[in-house]
Every structure is written in C-alpha cells, then in structure tokens.
C-alpha cells in the first residue's frame, strides 16, 4: 500500500511529475488492495488526469485523486448504493458535488463501498461484500461510508466523499483513524445523492488531515438552487485553519459517556479534552437530557423516510428487474430479490411507523422528540463554543460480530445520530487508540459554524501526533 500523502503533497508530486503519473500510481496501489474499499473504478480517470496535464488546469484540486461513495450520482459511472437492485444503473447526470469536483480539477478514481443504501454501521451489508478495516482486516471499517474511510486510511486515495445520515461519515472515520466531517444540514447540496433519509443526511468529506477537509469543503459546499434545503451562505473553510483555541469554551455532554462505553475510548477522549485545556481552552460538563430518546427518534424518522424514498426502485425504469406476469408481480419480485435483509427490515418498519393508527404514536412522536433533541443542542451551545464527545462508544468490532443482531448495531450510533436530528455540524478526528484500533473525537458545533470545529480540530492536530500513525501495512 502507498504512503499517506496530503493534498499539498500531491500537488508537489504533480508539479514534479504529472497528474497522469500520480493517478497511475494510485490506480496501481488500488490494484493491489486487500480491503475491498472500491466497488467500481472509473476507466476515464487516467484520461482526465492527462487532460488536466495538457490543459494546465489551475483548479484548487487539479489532478487530485478522489473517491466517491456509491450513493452519489456520477454521470457515466455506475452508482448502485451497493445494492443488487441498482445493478446496471448508470446515472445520466452528475450530483452537484461531482460537478463542483470536476470543475476544480479533481480526478475521480472510482466509487467506494457502503452499507446497502447507507443502512448500517459496518459496510457488511453491501452487495459487493464487506470492506475490511486497514488497521485490522478482521474488523469492520465502520459504516455506512466504510469504503470511503478505509481507502483513505489505506493510502489508496488522499480524500473521499461519504454521506452521513446518522454518523455514516464520522463512524468510519473514527474506526479507520481518519478525519471525517458531517456539515450542517443545508451546507452541501444533496442534488444527486441517492436519498436514504432526506431530512437527516449530508454529504461529507474524509481525509487524513483537517486541512484537506477544509480544502474539499471550499470546493463542494455552497448554495445550489436544485436542492430546496440548500442554504445560501458564503464561507471559506480554509480560513479556519489556525492553531488557536485560546479561550475556546468546550462543553462535554455527560450523556455521551453512558453505559457500555469502552474504557480506553473514554480515556482517549478525556486525554484529548485535557490537551485542549493545555492549549488554552476551558471545558464544562453540560447536560443534554433528551439524548437517550434520540436513537429511537432517529430510527423511526430515518426508516419512515426510507420506506418512501426507496419505493421508486421497482424495476420499471432502471437497475435490476425480476420477471413477473404483470407490473405488480414484477415490482414485488424485483424488490424481494433486489433488496438485502437490512433494507427490507427498515422499509417494513418505516412503512409500519407511517401507517394509519401508528403514525401519531411513532412518526409524530419521533418528530416531537427530534425538536427536544434539537433544543438540547441549542441550549448547550448557547453557553459553549463547541461540544466534545467520543464519536463511537467503542472501537471497530469484528466482521460478523453484530450483523445478526441489528439492535446492537443500532446502539453503536448512539453518539452520532443526535447530531443529525439537530442538523448541526460535527467533525471526527483521531485522538488515540484502544488497543490497536483508532479512537475518534467528535467535535460538534453550532449551525453553520463549521469554522469553529475545523479550527479546534486543526489546532488539536497541530499539537498531537495521533493522526500521524498509519495502519501497519501503510506505514
């Protein structure tokens, strides 16, 4: 596997050789990969790199290789959500973020593996088989953007895009020891992102360091009239790359250190908070009393939305199609054969939660809880600048360990889903190890205050060396 190189390092390499050579070397590395992080390679990548060389492209990402999660639409490149039901589907259009990346000169190497339709925490439910964690190939890389995190951790690509509905960027970032950002809801256009739970999800970048996250954000974030939930607000994320946390007020929500938390994870996070104190920040404990209801609320909302979002996959227009004597039989069989177990489970639960007689009891109640959770954040962030907590309560688990126990898988999301319910931004950065497995520190900010969490994360990175440790085979 290749060594980790950041965007500025890659730009230097391109200056010394060419975008084509850099692209070719990454493609070669990926060719030898053992982790199954990529699902489809883009055969045009090398041509794009060659064009960038000949044009003398001056975009902010000119020649920089990037990997894209399987659920972000790429014109001419298979986009399947790692599901059988979308086999053969090639989008005729680019997602907003892809348009932005292409303009900036990025070279899309290929698509990365994920839990089927982003429903999972382990990337085990993929139609393409599981992705392995580069730190320990018996363990999961986290999910659902497991492929996007693992390929960055393995040095197969410097940066990638994932999507985060309930922790799907931050969880694999934490499990794979890389940096991952879930931006504020409305920050990045979702146009072209295949919906799992529209009211919760955002596209987010993954990288080996905070500066690269800011660079990607400068390219992909911003208003897009094609997404009604997109917010028109200018921001330069790289302006936040300053080593300065003097006077920063940190809130530490007690509820995020609850029952079942791994001791070493707890210690690593508290060590990180002490480090921030050393650097000039102060902390106080805060209470977010509705955290314990967040998980239930999240799953009801996410599954309800999913049951409707995934209705369109019926074999009529694209993707997999089963045989049947009429449309209803064809569509039913297509869905029965095309969706995996976890997807079916969530569609059924979501359908149930929205049904007459249960709608108020589940869906409406979940919405009310969502408001309470959001109020927790508003209150807590009224007194402090950022919140800090473990991204995941425990490090990456073994492949196969939890796949037959959906409830324990859902519980792993306990610290990430409240952030999506509230719509606030959150970044996960490496902050130590539990055994040989990386631990992630989650830094949560106010709505559209990405710069506060980027600055805190960047400062932490400048004063620690957790992020410089590499998976054994990458080092």
């Amino acid at each position, binding site marked *: 596997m290749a060594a980790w190189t950041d965007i500025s390092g890659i730009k230097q390499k391109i200056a010394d050789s060419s975008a084509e050579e850099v692209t070719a070397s990454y493609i070669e590395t990926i060719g030898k990969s053992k982790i199954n992080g990529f699902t489809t390679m883009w055969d045009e990548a090398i041509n794009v790199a060659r064009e960038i060389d000949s044009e003398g492209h001056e975009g902010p990402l000119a020649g920089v290789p990037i990997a894209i999660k399987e659920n972000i639409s790429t014109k001419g490149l298979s986009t399947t959500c790692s599901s059988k039901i979308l086999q053969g589907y090639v989008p*005729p259009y680019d997602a907003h973020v892809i348009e932005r990346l292409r303009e900036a000169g990025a070279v899309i190497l290929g698509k990365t593996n994920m839990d089927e339709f982003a429903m999972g925490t382990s990337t085990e439910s993929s139609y393409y088989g599981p992705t392995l964690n580069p730190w320990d190939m018996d363990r999961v890389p986290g999910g659902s953007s497991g492929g996007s995190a693992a390929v960055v951790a393995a040095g197969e690509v410097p940066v990638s895009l994932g999507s985060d509905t309930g922790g799907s960027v931050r969880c694999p970032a934490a499990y794979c020891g890389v940096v991952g950002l879930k931006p504020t809801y409305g920050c990045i256009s979702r146009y072209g992102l295949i919906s799992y739970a529209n009211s919760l999800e955002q596209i987010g970048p993954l990288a080996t360091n905070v500066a690269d996250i800011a660079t990607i954000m400068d390219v992909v974030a911003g208003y897009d009239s094609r997404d009604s*939930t997109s917010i028109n607000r200018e921001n330069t994320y790289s302006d936040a790359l300053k080593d300065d946390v003097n006077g920063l007020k940190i809130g530490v929500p007690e509820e995020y250190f609850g029952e079942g938390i791994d001791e070493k994870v707890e210690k690593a996070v508290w060590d990180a908070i002490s480090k921030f104190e050393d650097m000039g920040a102060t902390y106080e404990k805060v209470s977010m009393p509705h955290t314990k209801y967040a998980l239930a609320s999240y799953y009801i909302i996410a599954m309800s939305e999913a049951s*409707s979002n995934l209705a369109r996959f*019926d074999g009529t227009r694209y993707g997999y199609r089963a045989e049947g004597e009429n449309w209803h039989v064809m569509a039913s069989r297509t869905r029965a054969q095309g969706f995996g177990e976890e997807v079916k489970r969530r569609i059924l639960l979501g359908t149930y939660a929205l049904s007459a007689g249960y709608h108020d009891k589940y869906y409406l109640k979940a919405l009310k809880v969502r408001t309470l959770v959001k109020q927790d954040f508003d209150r807590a962030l009224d007194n402090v600048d950022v919140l800090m907590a473990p991204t995941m309560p425990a490090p990456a688990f073994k492949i196969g360990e939890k796949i037959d126990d959906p409830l324990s898988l859902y519980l792993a999301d306990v610290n990430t889903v409240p952030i999506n319910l509230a719509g606030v931004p959150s970044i996960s950065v490496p902050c130590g190890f539990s055994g040989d497995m990386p631990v992630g520190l989650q830094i949560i900010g106010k709505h559209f205050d990405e710069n506060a969490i980027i600055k805190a994360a960047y400062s932490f990175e400048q004063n620690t060396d957790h992020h410089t440790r590499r998976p054994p085979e990458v080092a």
Partner: protein
Amino acid sequence: MVYENPDGIRIGLEVHVQLNKLNTKLFCGCSTDYHDSEPNTHVCPICLGLPGSLPVLNERAVEFAIKIGLALNCSIVEQTQFHRKNYYYPDLPKNFQTTQYDYPIAAEGKIIIEGEDGEHNVGITRAHIEEDPARLQHMGTIDKSKGTLINYNRSGMTLIEIVSEPDMRSPKEARRYLEKLRSILDYLGVFDGDLEGAMKADANVSVFWGERVEIKNISSFKGVERALLYEIMRQKNQIRRGGEIVMETRHFDEARGVTISMRTKEDEQDYRYFPEPDLVPMRVADWVPKVRETLPELPDAKRARFMEEYSLGETHARALTTEIKVANFFEEVAKKVDPKDAAVWVSDILKGELNYRELSIDAFTVEDMVAVVELVTANKITEKSAVDVIRTVLDDGGKPQEIVEKKGLLKVEDDIVATAVDEAIAENPEAVADYLGGKEKSLNFIVGKVMQKTKGRADAREAREKVLAKLNE
C-alpha cells in the same frame, strides 16, 4: 320558488385541472408544451424520478393556484406545505405522489351556479396543488394487453384538485358547476381547457341523505351528468328493493353508461402521508394582495356589467360571458355597432355556426362580424343572406363584402320591387279578384310572384307590405 330536492340528492365533485399554461412543470424545468411531441421527450431526472433527483417548487404554479383560490372566494394558506402520498402504481415514477394534505393552498370558498331554483351557492372545501403522473398506454385492450408503455411527458405537470362540498342537488347542477368552474379558470388564463387531460372529475353522490358513493375517472362534462343520472337511478332502485347503499368507490364505464363497483370502504388504501422532506415551506401570505390585483373581471361580474352597460337580457349576457374570448369578441363588436345587434349576431348566430363546426371564436374576426352586422342593419342584405355570409367565411374564407358581391346577395332596389309588384298584380287579375273577394291566401300567391321576379333577393316581408299597399289603394 324553492327547489325541494325530493330525493335528498347530494352531489360533490373533485375536479383535477392541469395548469397547462405554465411554461414548466411543477418541480422541474421541463417544458409543458408536450401535447404534440414524441413520447418521453419532455423529461429530466426529476420528473423521471431518477435516484438522487430533488424537486424544486415552481413559484409560478403556486401563484396560479393562489389566483384560482382567490377566484373561488377561498382563503389562502400562510405557507405552502407538501406531503407524500405513498402508493405503488406504474404511472408514478417515485411510487409516491407529491401533493398537499392538511394545508391545502386554498380552502373554504364558493361558486355561484344557475341552480334548479335560480342562483345557488356551491361550497368549495379546498383546492390543492399536486403533480400529474405519467401516462400509461396499453398495447391492446386493458385485459388482453401484451404490455404497457409509459410516457413521462405528462409526469410532473401541475394539477390543481378542486374539491366541492356536496351542495349540488341534481346532475344538471353538477354540469352547471363544471361549466362555471371551467369558465372561471378560462378567465384566469391558467389553462387551455381544450387540451387532452386538461380537466377531469370524480363525483360523489348520495340519495335520501344517505351514504355517499364515489365515482372515479369521468372524462367529460357530459360523462359526469350521465354517470350521476345512472348512479342516482341505481341507488334509488337499490333502496326501493329494500337494499342498502354502502360507502364505496365505483368506476364509470363510459361506453356502457353504467357504474361498476371498484372497492368498498374497507379496502381503502393507507397512503401513509408525511411531509415531503425535500421541499421547505414557502411563505406565500405576502403574495396574496399582489395576486389579487391581477385577478380579471370574473364571469358573474362581467355578466352583470353586460346587462347594465349594454342593456342585454340575462340569456344573452350569460351566453356571451361563458368564455372570456367570446366576451372580449362581443365587446369589440359592440364598439362599432348597436350592442343589442352585436349580442344577437354573436350569441345566437355566430356561436351556433362555430359550435356546429367545433371551432373557437378565433376562427372569425371582429372586423368581419362588424361588417356582417352593418350590412344587415343598413338593410343591404337580408338576415338569411347574412347567415350565408358567415357560413361562407367559415367554410371557404373571404371577406363579407366580397362574398356579398360574388353571390349577388345585395338586396334589390326599391323601384325594382315596385315594378315587380305592379307587374305581378297586372299579370294575375284572378288572384287579385280572389283576394279582394276575401280569399286571404291569394295574397301569398301574388307575393310569391314578386319574389320570383326579383329572383328571391327582395325581402319577403317587404314585398308583402308593398303588394298589400298597392291592392288597398
């Protein structure tokens, strides 16, 4: 006179109106001008429901909907809210329809119709915005079809569903309601009612104040009246035989003129409505005063004004104000000729000739209408010739003046008639004697001779008067 409604009939209508005068569809930029296009040429990722596509609300569609709401005397919602109506059907690209649920754009209005006993109010429960599904085309008949083709050109077109209260008391009132609604929409310029799929109705009807039955998919105004007549008869017969009316949905078989049971209340679908997460509420309360300013004079007001300003009778005023184009046409003609003459010629004659040919008022010009009316009122051509001129313009083209000359329709001069009268009397002494002896009918014979001599160009009544005058000298 008060209409007693002896059979306790209550009819409500749900009308779907396609706003085909918008330039683009409800949630995407696709053109709405697809009616003469190849299938699947007015489509994009959004109206095809491709994965990852997102809807963006067409503000002009909302403006049109507010305009309709105001014209129907409704109150307008503060902010838009859309829901998903979830059900599986091959014409739905997303297997849900984006529609409005508990916050329709407009609610609680009314329409005044010409009822069984004069003016009658029909309440408007609500009007909401929703997207039109794709069009299915079966290869062969529906039961023996080898396959179905889907044309997404229509997918995502803007529909307004207008729901009335069950305030209509006869099929005739239901038809009048539809005509009035169409007339108002026509005035607003929000749709072209002649395009395929522009207006569709579902009806609900109950008799003896009983359970209501819904009738789906009626494609024409005539169909509504027929379906209701049949359904009322069916329900009355059922009750007469001691049966009960159950709440159900029935389908109208246009060809056979009967309604057929589709499903009862128990198997009604659960649409699992929930708010559309991809559309944020849009505040429209501030738009309302502005939109209200753009409202044109509506049919009722125009009719009243025509009666007042042009001294027209109710019948003429009503006929002339149903369609905005006809009303405008009339007013243009009335500027040049006596409005009462204009009303007679536009409403009684021209409209009949146009209807017979299934033509709109666009097929005739104001200038030609003025010319025809002037020729008649100046006594230069007979009324019969004037109708002939109108028909000729419609069928073969040409200008009235030219047609009159070419066909030699100009009335003959007075002295020619006088000569013909003198000759006829001189040449038919027996008939003259008979008339003078008391045989009234002999007069007709003499007038007939005058007409023969003038080759029919003389006015018959005028000729008769002249013969009489001569004989009575």
